[in-house]
């Protein structure tokens, strides 16, 4: 390996990043913009879910219950209806996401402590809102039972006050507010910091398309010099992003950072190496830029979203998917980011993931170097 060759390729690629507007955007600005978009879009809080109520009981108790349910910000009473047909009509027209049907024996059964007969109907085409409505109604129903029980017990023995018959104490660690943002933003870092992988894939197929690769093949430059020289500038830019973007996450999105920043930076650099090597493979195999773009989405971004455990826990995946997840740099990096930001763990916990990223990066480079020949056709 000649350091002069390596430096020539690195320098040329660096000039390309800073002089080509599209590459500059993709590598330097896009990660930040993407983080903003995704963090806002994915952490939208559901509020004011419209529901309808069909009250067959029409008692004072049921009216109080309905008032309590719709008192907060979470559920909005769209209509009080008289028949099930009206509920179906409202659901079909999308006016409501859920409906609460109160049994004719509601007040009587609750008074005699036999239960709380009611039914919740939700719109399964929008399970998020529907599920949210179920959670809210269950939680309010629990409250309501608590109040009713407390009132009845107190009637039997007035000396008892401040009663809380059901008392479930929930403690959420690392993200006390259970705010989706706090958990998502560190996870999303693996995707936004992986953006330069797309550019590195495109830069190889771009040279192939424009014929400059043919020219390079006719020179004495070696394959490794070429591939590494192309990767180095993107790693450096990635390291810049690895400082900038966490700072944005901490300041703008108010994400706590409990770990060691230096360690995080070091592990991020290894992640850059791994994800960029994956980009190199894409560039080596794909003949044109559109093909490289398509394959990047297929092997880098979609799996990055769905298989790396950012949204769906890996433990819940079928075995084959879990194996695939292991081969994705994002999987290991998501653990590192969550560790560094939220749990604040150190190298004693994170080292296997760093090693794994390094091993993945080396294997990707090896595959790329084997299949990348200085030949056409």
């Amino acid at each position, binding site marked *: 390996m000649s350091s002069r060759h390596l430096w020539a390729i690195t320098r040329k690629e660096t*000039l390309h990043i800073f002089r*080509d507007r599209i590459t500059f955007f993709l590598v330097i600005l896009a990660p930040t913009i993407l983080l903003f978009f995704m963090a806002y879009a994915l952490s939208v809080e559901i509020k004011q879910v419209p529901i309808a109520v069909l009250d067959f009981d029409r008692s004072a108790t049921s009216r109080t219950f309905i008032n309590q349910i719709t008192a907060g910000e979470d559920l909005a009473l769209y209509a009080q209806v008289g028949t099930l047909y009206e509920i179906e009509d409202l659901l079909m027209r999308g006016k409501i996401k859920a409906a609460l049907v109160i049994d004719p024996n509601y007040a009587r059964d609750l008074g005699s402590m036999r239960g709380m007969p009611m039914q919740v109907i939700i719109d399964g085409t929008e399970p998020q809102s529907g599920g949210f409505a179920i959670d809210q109604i269950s939680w309010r129903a629990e409250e309501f039972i608590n109040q009713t029980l407390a009132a009845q017990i107190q009637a039997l023995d007035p000396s008892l006050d401040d009663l809380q018959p059901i008392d479930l104490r929930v403690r959420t660690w690392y993200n006390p507010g259970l705010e989706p943002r706090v958990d998502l933003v560190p996870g999303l870092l693996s995707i936004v910091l992986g953006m330069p992988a797309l550019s590195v894939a495109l830069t190889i197929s771009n040279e192939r398309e424009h014929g400059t690769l043919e020219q390079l093949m*006719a020179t004495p430059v070696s394959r490794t010099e070429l591939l590494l020289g192309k990767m180095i500038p993107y790693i450096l830019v990635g390291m810049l992003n690895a400082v900038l973007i966490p700072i944005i996450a901490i300041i703008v999105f108010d994400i706590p950072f409990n770990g060691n920043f230096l360690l995080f930076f070091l592990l991020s650099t290894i992640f850059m190496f791994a994800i960029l090597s994956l980009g190199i493979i894409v560039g080596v195999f794909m003949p044109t830029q559109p093909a490289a773009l398509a394959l990047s989405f297929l092997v880098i971004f979609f799996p990055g979203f769905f298989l790396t455990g950012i949204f769906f826990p890996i433990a819940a995946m079928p075995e084959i998917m879990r194996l695939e997840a292991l081969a994705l740099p994002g999987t290991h990096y998501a653990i590192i980011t969550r560790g560094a930001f939220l749990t604040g763990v150190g190298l004693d916990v994170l080292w296997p993931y760093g090693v794994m990223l390094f091993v993945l990066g080396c294997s990707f480079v090896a595959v790329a170097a084997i299949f990348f020949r200085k030949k056409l056709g």
Partner: protein
Amino acid sequence: MDARPAIIETQDLVREFKKTRAVDELNLSIPGGELFGLVGPDGAGKTTTLRLLAGLLDITSGSARVAGYDLSDQVEAIKPHIGYMAQQFSLYSELTVRENLTFFAALYDVPRAELGDRKDRLLAFAGLTEFKDRRAGHLSGGMQKKLALACTLIHQPEILFLDEPTTGVDPISRREFWDILNELHLSGTTILVSTPYMDEADRCSRIGLMFEGQLVVCDTPARIRAGIKGEVVELQLEGWQAARSMLEDLPGVLEIQTYGESLHVLVDSADRRMPEIQDALDSQGIRVKNVRHAPLRMEEAFISLIQGMEG
């Protein structure tokens, strides 16, 4: 024919693609210092030949030696000795003229001490000195070609492979480009250039005509012209459109080319056919303003040869 040893030599060189045999048992021998022109119709295998010789394609069978190295197992050893300019050569458009030169100089390990001097000379040579800080993407087509040539010359290669280097370049730039090639030729560089332009082929020391992957004719331009069984009759007449379609059917007429208001008729024998053409035109009432026996152009020689192959 030539006592100098061959610097480029192929023996039954074959390159097959999925369905076609682009180069079919090619035997080519080029002595050092020659300016060799490769001509032939599109798809004859010129580009494949140049790519094979530059080590960019695997050989299917046969053998080739370039600069004393075997193409099948010493490909990388060849590369420092050659300069290769692809047909759709494109430079790094975001780099300046000078940065492009520096880049290729580094890849070819040009000694740093010589680099500044060589760059200055090549820039002057290519007439690019005043554009040295301009981005390659902002140069005209002709200047880009000259810069591309300068980049392939930075390491002073012994052998130059140029694949249609002047396609899409205006006539003045084309002439300038060929003046540069002539200077290189005089300084002893071996040049293998493919071209679709017959006037360019005429400037080579030897021409090889490729057809269906083989070298069918290989000789000096003068001798190729001399070997053609055909002569050109130039006609200036009124109503050449009607005359053209009529003449095409006459016996002995091989090819008709239109040059403005005149027709170049390639015939097997001018002495024999000239009166016949005259008679035929008279019978149709087409007035002939001028008839003369014109010299055979390389283009007509080439067409005649190709028609001989196909027909």
